């Protein structure tokens, strides 16, 4: 057990998995000698050599497409996409190839890989270095999608993803890298893919979030507690397969659901959460399932006043929660 930043937790998981299993290879732009543009893969190149920590050409479709072939021939690739915004050139390889390999071959081939993707706003990244992409990929059958909020979860979920038989999109929030630190167990951390977690129990409403927004949701719960409103905060963690049992349990207790993400609202991942709650938890609801999301403009504009305007935060979440509780 040691105090680790989110960034270190991811790094440690990579290092430990590469040491444990020589089939694991890391590939991507600047992941080698530079150690990644955020420093996540720092030292792996020196520890495991350039054949297992591959500085690739600047081509995302290639990074994923090559990983498909590696997986077919006995390796366990962990490709990194430098920013979530730059995963789009690989959309075809991910949707058509990675996600469908097992189904289309009737289980003849699997496609185990963990695609690491730094995502999210609040880092002065503007339209093209701030994007959230979970809505696109959580929609795709055959993929799993995870988005840890804490260092321990970051380590545990990355290890689980690498050991998974199926492809996992691993979303790491850029702003959390150096913003948070916490106790992380040495060695393996047991955080299986597919489970949400109640991080703070409460009776008046349920707030559902993941990644950076979990911290804002917990902040909102603190603000609300001052007004005597007890918010339950649920960390979705795995977006696909979604842990609907935990979600519905919580709504059954609180009768009110607030869903938070920083991605654009229209057609965002929150729509699925809200629709699921409305459809399967209808009889428990005392108020409309409500979303607090990034507004419907492209990603996060740059100038500080615009960035602030875009990002959901504890105050905005608390305000929506108060309206919801008063419904």
């Amino acid at each position, binding site marked *: 057990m040691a105090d680790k930043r989110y960034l270190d937790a991811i790094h440690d998981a990579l290092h430990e998995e590469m040491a444990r299993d020589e089939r694991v*290879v890391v590939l991507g732009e600047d992941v080698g000698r530079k150690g990644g543009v955020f420093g996540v893969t720092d030292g792996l190149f020196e520890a495991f050599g350039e*054949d*297992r920590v591959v500085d*690739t*050409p600047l*081509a995302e*479709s*290639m990074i*994923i*497409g*090559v*990983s*498909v*072939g*590696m*997986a*077919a*021939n*006995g*390796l366990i*690739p962990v490709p990194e996409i430098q920013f979530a915004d730059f995963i789009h*050139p690989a959309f*075809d*390889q991910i949707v*058509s*190839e990675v996600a*469908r*390999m*097992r*189904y*289309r*071959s*009737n*289980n*003849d*081939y*699997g496609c185990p890989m963990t695609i690491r993707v730094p995502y999210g706003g609040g880092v002065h990244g503007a339209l093209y270095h701030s994007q959230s992409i979970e809505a696109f990929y959580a929609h795709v*059958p*055959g993929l*799993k999608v995870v988005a840890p909020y804490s260092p321990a979860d970051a380590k545990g979920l990355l290890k689980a993803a690498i050991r*998974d*038989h*199926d492809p996992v999109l691993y979303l790491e929030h850029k702003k959390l890298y150096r913003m948070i630190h916490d106790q992380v167990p040495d060695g393996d951390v047991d955080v299986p893919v597919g489970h949400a977690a109640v991080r703070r129990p409460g009776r008046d409403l349920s707030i559902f979030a993941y990644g950076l927004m979990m911290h804002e949701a917990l902040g909102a719960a603190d603000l609300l507690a001052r007004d005597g409103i007890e918010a339950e905060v649920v960390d979705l963690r795995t977006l696909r397969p979604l842990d609907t049992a935990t979600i519905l349990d919580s709504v059954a207790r609180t009768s009110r659901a607030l869903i938070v993400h920083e991605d654009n609202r229209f057609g965002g991942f929150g729509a699925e959460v809200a629709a699921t709650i409305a459809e399967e938890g209808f009889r428990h609801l005392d108020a409309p399932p409500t979303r607090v999301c990034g507004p419907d403009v492209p990603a996060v504009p740059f100038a500080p006043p615009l960035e602030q305007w875009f990002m959901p935060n504890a105050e905005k979440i608390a305000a929506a929660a108060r309206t919801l509780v008063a419904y």
Partner: protein
Amino acid sequence: MSAREAKAVKSPVERTPQTLGVHDRELLEMYYYVRLARAVDERMWALQRSGQAAFVISGQGHEGAQVGTVFALDRDKDWLVPFYRSVAAVLVKGMPPAEIFLIQLSKATDPSSGGRQMPGHYGHSGHKILSTSSPVTTQLLHADGIAYAAKLRGTGEVCVTEVGEGATSEGDFHEALNFAAIHRLGVIFLVENNGYAISVPLSKQMAVPNVSARAVGYGIPGVTVDGSHVLDVYVAAREAVARARRGDGPTLLEVNVPRLTAHSSDDRQEKYRSADEIRHTKEHDPVHVFAGELRAWGVLTDAREQEIAERVRRAVDEGTEIAEAAPAVDPATATRYVYYEHNAPPGRGR
């Protein structure tokens, strides 16, 4: 069809099987596969016309390119990453005709997809044939990954992947050649240039007469061979495989072939190809050109021809019977294998 007019790099007349060290036995086996592929292919169309299959896409005219190339592989050890015209390639790589017909008829025991994919989407881990999809050109990067894994794991495997000339316009073509060249991967990029991408002729696909002209830009060898001359293809492929096996990297092997059918059963090529051109194309039919060459070399006799024809007929008929008798897909299986299942039957698959 300007690709066709481009001069083949090697002329068959100057070179004989003897000088090239190719035995009669091998030549006759190649000829068998060329004929087998054609017969399987014709049966696929017949099954479609008789209403047993909704769709057919196949490789008539491409047989020489594929047989010549896959023959150069170690068929147990090496990999094939095919495309929808790969009838001959998968046959040589080890798929019996019955498996191809199971795929064509989308039966439950279709080994590539259990009836989930359209006909023509070959794959089979037992034969080291990677599962393929419909979006063109993605597979070239998969071949890179397979070869990268082979290199890292030190297995010595070589990988052939096939693609049409039209599909080389996709970005993935560029990205795949570049990565393979940088890491000197054991990949043979087999471009089967039939001069058309559905209706789009080569002149609207690229401003060069040959795809192989692109090799120099990646620092790898590029050759163009006439696919009617199966021996030439084989010799070029043998060189490429040797280079790959030595660790000297990939080869861009372009083979000019005629497209002897419409693009698929959904296409009517008369709209964009003149009757004259379609007739002309037949002159390059590898079945006939190869047969003529084998006879000229004294390798093929009437007796052997008949023997091979009989072997082909039996293989195709038996395969068809097996496939027709196979069970239809049970829709109760439709939800299986979106994800890994711990309780899946062992055996095939990984």
